[in-house]
């Protein structure tokens, strides 16, 4: 099928991703785009434990993701592409705007410099500006932690 969800979540693969979105959208492929996890066997082992065996998990670097996104769009699987930060998703959007059309802000948590925008979403002003630029370029961006909660438009997070 295609990449059906592009999500930013700094907890990476966890229950909301696998059960919340995975079951609701019948996901059978999770692509985690993270340069550090892509080269760390012990981290991959831990993230795989959270996923049912029938769901394929791929750990890829940002460079590999940019190269292969078009293939994933037509490989017959329903994919969820996941990044841990805004910057990585912005780069993916620049690489292939057709694949990264809609961006789901699923969970970005507290860190010095970030401000609470929603209970599950903390952003620095710079991160918010990056997202606004992506939206101005045609991306559709909403904050929504689970499919059962209503999506919140980016413009109401400022």
């Amino acid at each position, binding site marked *: 099928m295609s990449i059906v969800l592009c999500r930013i979540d700094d907890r990476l693969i966890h229950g909301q991703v696998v059960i919340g979105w995975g079951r609701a959208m019948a996901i059978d492929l999770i692509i985690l785009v993270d340069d550090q996890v892509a080269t760390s066997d012990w981290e991959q082992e831990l993230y795989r434990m959270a996923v049912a065996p029938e769901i394929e998990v791929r750990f890829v670097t940002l460079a590999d993701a940019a190269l292969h996104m078009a293939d994933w769009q037509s490989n017959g699987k329903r994919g969820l592409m996941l990044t841990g930060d805004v910057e990585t998703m912005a780069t993916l959007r620049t690489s292939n705007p057709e694949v990264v059309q809609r961006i789901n802000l699923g969970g970005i948590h*507290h860190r010095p410099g970030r401000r609470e925008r929603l209970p599950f979403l903390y952003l620095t002003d710079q991160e918010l500006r990056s997202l606004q630029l992506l939206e101005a370029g045609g991306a559709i961006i909403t904050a929504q932690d689970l499919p059962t909660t209503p999506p919140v438009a980016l413009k109401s997070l400022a």
Partner: protein
Amino acid sequence: MLRLFAVQGTWNYERMLGVGMGYAAEPLLEDLKAVDPVRHGEAVARSAEFFNCNPNLAGLALGAVTRAEYEDIPGPQIARLRTALCSPLGAMGDELFWAGLVPALMGAALVGVVLGAGWWAIAGFILAYNGIRLWTSYWSLRLGMQSGMRVGSAIGASWLPRAIELIGPVAAFTIGAALPLVAAWYLTAFGWPAGIGAAGVTMAGIALTRWFAPFLTPVRFALAAMIFLVILRRVGV
């Protein structure tokens, strides 16, 4: 170990279990103070940063991270270990406890009540659930302390994955056994009309929760149905 019982005591969106983990880690990190006071300060601060998982398996993360601090693993790597542990400990703990053990024991307790065990069945449920929960917390902390950065392999080789596979069918069996028994127990006194009404509400629930998924979950439907039935009763229908 005792401090792990309060791991959710300061739950908040900013750090979730983080402060509770820091509170539980503080005595475990005490010996580091004499060896390396600077490292001790960093370790205590790190232990209270954002963290989230199923509280019953939090001991695995607490133990593994504590051991990693004593083994002088670089701070950024320990932070990544904490982040990576959120995922499997959340998913595995939720499957084992919330989707497995709790419904399995509740089903068994309901069967016990219907068959005449009364309050003994309720007491058995409370004792069994809390006994398993306490033992799992103890086991988690111990395994985490033994394995440190190798905690992923240790979890994979433990009883946990097998228990998760088994508990799902057990829960389905006990709930499947309890539902008709409890329904018959409740509805016998009201005769056929009540049975037909209950079957109608069940069928409507199955259809509507599929039709309006994911917004209309079974829990939301059950709450709406209960409110609807209370209103009908109030107006005398």
